[in-house]
């Protein structure tokens, strides 16, 4: 979508909307150049600004600390507000009014982290969904997750995908429980592939826990082991026991409804013969 059509000018700010997982977040900022950068960063995920679900005003400040990981991150509830703090940004968000402020420099990484955190809070609050350290892809109308920590092979298996596979992400997957079951959504949260996923959804058919080995094979694992592995890879940052419990139950419930297996791969492209 051309930038000029989705960057909407107001009296003080311009805005654009970013739709991930069927949830649209509109962001306002005073710098059109920053908004254009976001349009390019989230290409394929920009939504209709008139129907946004949440709004944030971004206060751009002089660049200071740069933080690439989530060290030092704090996400806590203060009264009715969520407060998000890391070296490179601070944000507060009112889940009732569905609006908030972000204070950061004009870089795409801080807003990227804020969006990820906000989505984890939305998913946990609504129940049944979460973000997962996993690559994901759609094949034959079905979605598959490939979960693992850094180095497990998420980007590798994404690179090996044949042309008929639609990649949803090589780093952070998005799952929501809906009326018809569990659905995987594409995300713009990329890993080493440095490429945003496709903005599509599909029913989640299986979760594979990645392991590297001498051959390609799929093994069943006990359900409790599956739950432990899944919980290790769930992204959740908030210091909030109620939401932690919701995420815990959401992950355990998913294990009861979606097959979770171990996928050992060589790695070579033939591994995709197992993913149908």
């Amino acid at each position, binding site marked *: 979508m051309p930038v000029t059509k989705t960057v909407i000018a107001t009296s003080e700010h311009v805005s654009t909307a970013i739709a991930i997982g069927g949830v649209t977040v509109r962001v306002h900022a005073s710098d059109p150049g920053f908004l254009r950068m976001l349009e390019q960063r989230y290409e394929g995920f920009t939504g209709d600004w008139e129907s946004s679900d949440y709004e944030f005003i971004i206060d751009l400040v002089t660049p200071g600390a740069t933080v690439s990981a989530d060290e030092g991150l704090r996400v806590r509830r203060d009264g009715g507000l969520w407060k998000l703090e890391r070296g490179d940004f601070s944000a507060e968000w009112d889940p009732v009014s569905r609006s908030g402020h972000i204070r950061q420099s004009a870089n795409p990484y801080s807003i990227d982290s804020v969006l990820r955190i906000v989505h984890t809070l939305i998913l946990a609050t609504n129940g049944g969904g979460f973000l997962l350290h996993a690559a994901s892809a759609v094949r034959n109308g079905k979605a598959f997750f490939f979960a693992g920590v850094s180095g497990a092979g998420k980007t590798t298996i994404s690179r090996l995908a044949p042309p008929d596979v639609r990649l949803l992400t090589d780093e952070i997957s998005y799952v929501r429980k809906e009326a018809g079951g569990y659905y995987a959504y594409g995300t713009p949260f990329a890993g080493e592939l440095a490429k945003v996923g496709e903005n599509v959804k599909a029913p989640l058919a299986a979760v594979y826990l990645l392991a590297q080995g001498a051959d390609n094979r799929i093994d069943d694992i*006990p*359900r*409790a082991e599956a*739950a432990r592995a899944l*919980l290790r890879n769930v992204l959740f940052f908030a210091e909030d026991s109620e939401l*932690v*419990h919701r995420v815990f*139950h959401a992950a355990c419930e998913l294990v009861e409804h979606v097959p979770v297996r171990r996928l050992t791969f060589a790695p070579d492209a033939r591994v995709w013969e197992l993913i149908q």
Partner: protein
Amino acid sequence: MSDTRYVARSTKVAARMVGDEMMIMSGRDSTLFALNGTAAVLWEAADGVTLLEDIVARRICATFDVEPAAAFRDAEELVEQLAGHGLMLLSDAPIVAGAESENSR
């Protein structure tokens, strides 16, 4: 150790039977714990008003082929560990709902 000990599940944890294990997540630091089948029976029975020795006699020894004295020792060790992680409350008196405080054990 006391023979008249009451045990109760902490209300600050999330717990769920998954497969053949009881998965427990601490609300304090999100640490995940897993209990095997025998320990899960004790966990389920820890209602705050039943003595630990009664739980062992009626629920553990009646279900599993274990020697009562050894089962009681194991149970005491387990509840001490769980209490140490803030997952369970221990008391010489029945534990009423709402008795849990920030520092309770």
